């Protein structure tokens, strides 16, 4: 009641607890950054455990790393970097007041890249791993050539599936967010004056991409492959 008198007409997307759009935008951005810090700690816990065990069981982890197909990882890295570009272009389109069709185009392209990543991961890479019997808990088999390294290789594969699995969960959440953004754009929610949800979701999407870059390097590349 008093609020309406105090603030007059609300701009679109304005939430009642804020004084103005500027404050709302800053709060949203800070909120996402704080959330990303929790995510860094979340993945950081896994990375720490991984690195500790890598130091303890270096040879096993190298053997495990050789079981992964770099071609899958590299393709997916490329796909994700493309999706980050299209995400940034979607935000750019909203910021500069382009037609909503253009924003939706970039968002959908981002979703296609995201889906491609997950498709490659689940239907090719993980299926391949399953056939090779290197999925811990699901028909994992020690190979004679590993000798005493076997348990360490299994440990490596545990971390591989756990870390990339957690990353995949974040990707799926990201696809959900993108779907919501497409619907919001279609309903004309965004304008050059208000595109905070796009911007904040973009931060999340880029973060998930960066985590993948680290995973790719840590799991596939390091370990004396050459």
């Amino acid at each position, binding site marked *: 009641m*008093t*609020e309406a008198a*105090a603030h007059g007409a609300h701009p679109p997307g304005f*939430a*009642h*607890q*804020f004084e103005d759009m500027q*404050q709302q935008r*800053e*709060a949203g951005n*800070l*909120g996402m950054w*704080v*959330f990303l*810090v*929790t*995510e860094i*700690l*979340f*993945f*950081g*816990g*896994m990375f*720490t*455990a991984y690195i*500790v*065990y890598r130091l*303890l*069981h270096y040879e*096993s982890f190298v053997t495990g790393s050789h079981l992964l197909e770099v071609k899958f990882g590299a393709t997916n890295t490329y796909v994700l970097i493309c999706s980050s570009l299209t995400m940034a272009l979607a935000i750019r389109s909203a910021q500069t007041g382009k037609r909503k069709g253009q924003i939706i185009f970039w968002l959908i392209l981002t979703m296609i890249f995201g889906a491609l990543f997950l498709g490659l991961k689940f239907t090719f890479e993980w299926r391949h791993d399953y056939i090779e019997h290197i999925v*811990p*808990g699901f028909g*994992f088999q020690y190979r004679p050539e590993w000798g005493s390294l076997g*348990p*360490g290789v*299994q*440990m490596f594969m*545990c971390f591989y599936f*756990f870390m990339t699995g957690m990353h995949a969960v974040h990707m799926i959440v990201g696809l959900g967010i993108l779907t919501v953004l497409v619907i919001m754009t279609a309903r004309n929610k965004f304008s050059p004056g208000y595109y905070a949800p796009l911007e904040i979701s973009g931060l999340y999407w880029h973060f998930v991409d960066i985590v993948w870059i680290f995973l790719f390097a840590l799991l596939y590349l390091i370990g004396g492959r050459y």
Partner: protein
Amino acid sequence: MSTATAGAHDGPPESGVNYLNASYGIKSWLLTTDHKRIGLLYLVSVTFMFLVGGLAAVVMRLHLVEPQGALLEPETYNKFFTMHGIIMVFFFTIPAVPATLGNFLIPIMIGARDVAFPKLNLLSWYVFIVGAIITLGAILSGGVDTGWTFYPPYSSLYSQSHVAAVAIGVFITGFSSILTGLNFIVTIHKMRAPGMTWFRMPLFIWASYATSLIAVLGTPVVAITIVLLGLERLLHVGIFDPAVGGDPLLFQHMFWFYSHPAVYIMILPPMGVVSELITAFSRKRVFGYSFVAMSSLAIAVISFVVWGHHMFVTGQSIYAGLVFSVLSFMVAIPSAIKIFNWTATLYKGSISYEAPMLYAMGFIGLFTMGGLTGLFLAALATDVHLNGTYFIVAHFHYVMVGGAVIAYLGGIHFWWPKITGRLYPERWARLAALLVFVGFNLTFFPQFLMGYMGMPRRYAVYPAEFQVLNVLSSAGASVLGVGYFIPLIYLIWSLRYGKPAGPNPWGAKGLEWTIASPPPTENFLTPPVVEEAYNYSGTGGSHD
């Protein structure tokens, strides 16, 4: 419920609309995004969890009256102390002050209409409830016997109890404290009223800010640790299992990386409450404001580098042990700064001893005991003797109960008139505060002695020589139980029969006392402008 707005500095008394009567019905509560109502939802939830956890403690203390155990099978006893620990740590003490008083007070104290993300705030309550239901369900269907610390390989390979379900419950609840912490950080950064600079913020806000930092930085790590443990248990893959190259100590490192700072999630907000109580009932600006404020941040920072003091006897490197020992001693410095500043605030203050002040004084004494005995445990040599004994049990109960719970009760009493618009009966409250203090000391002081003499914790039986001390402890627990029960009765009673409180029954300073009790939905009818914190000079200590 009628409201007393007579004498309000702000807000037309004729409106009489407040956050409690603005809308009615169960739906208006379950779908609310009002930080004050969410605070009350949390209040009811954590009180319920406190009763469940307290019940477990009652059964344990009854059991321990006899050396051979009076009630339970040893396996059942293990489940009871585990249930007590998990519920009291994760579902009561961690959320108690931040989620109830913090939710209610933070926006008001900084002059905001609400937290930055009201819907997220409601979501965090639902997340808490889901975690609580899963945990309680697992407990009812058989329970868990690992201790609240879930140490592998027992928890991951050998325990026959519902470890996975309880771990999932705790994991989910963690996200509730992450969301609350995130909300508070953004709220405190971005929602302050004009003139509310960082160094005019109430000390409760500083404490809540430091707490939120810990919650946001620490909780994700314990979450991931618990997931790893759950995976090991469900899929039978070795992660912490030494038989396949895993390292159980890694679990302990990761667990305590969160769970030591979590001690400060539990104690910092109560310290903030005590700062408010001491200054209000001494009618004097808190001594050394900036030192008290900065000591909260110092505690938050140091808390992240001391976790190894839980592992002195686990085979951790002796050099790591030395470093962790020195760092642990350093926590004593900011803690002591607070204690000394509170004491100095009392000097030449016009002190009165209403119930909240009794709790605050109790806090200072008991937390000092808890803190000083912590130094015994931070010292490598004495820790070898005391680790795993009742000395530790007594130490952390002095901090968690004598500190956190007592300050929580003090805070609930202090702000009860603001929350409900009603006064609680002062005589009963003082009686209860004294009973809690006496009962608490009688329960836990004997445990220092038992522990010093070598009685190990977590055993269902004990040598007969410890019986006198155990009986004393159990007797104290019943006094403590009565002390908790009385406020439960009269606070509920006061909702209907308590005297109308008026906006500022204590003559305290702070934005929350400038608005009506209970506050209107939007908190401030006219946006506040802040000029000074704790401006007690010139008011002469008179009540409004």
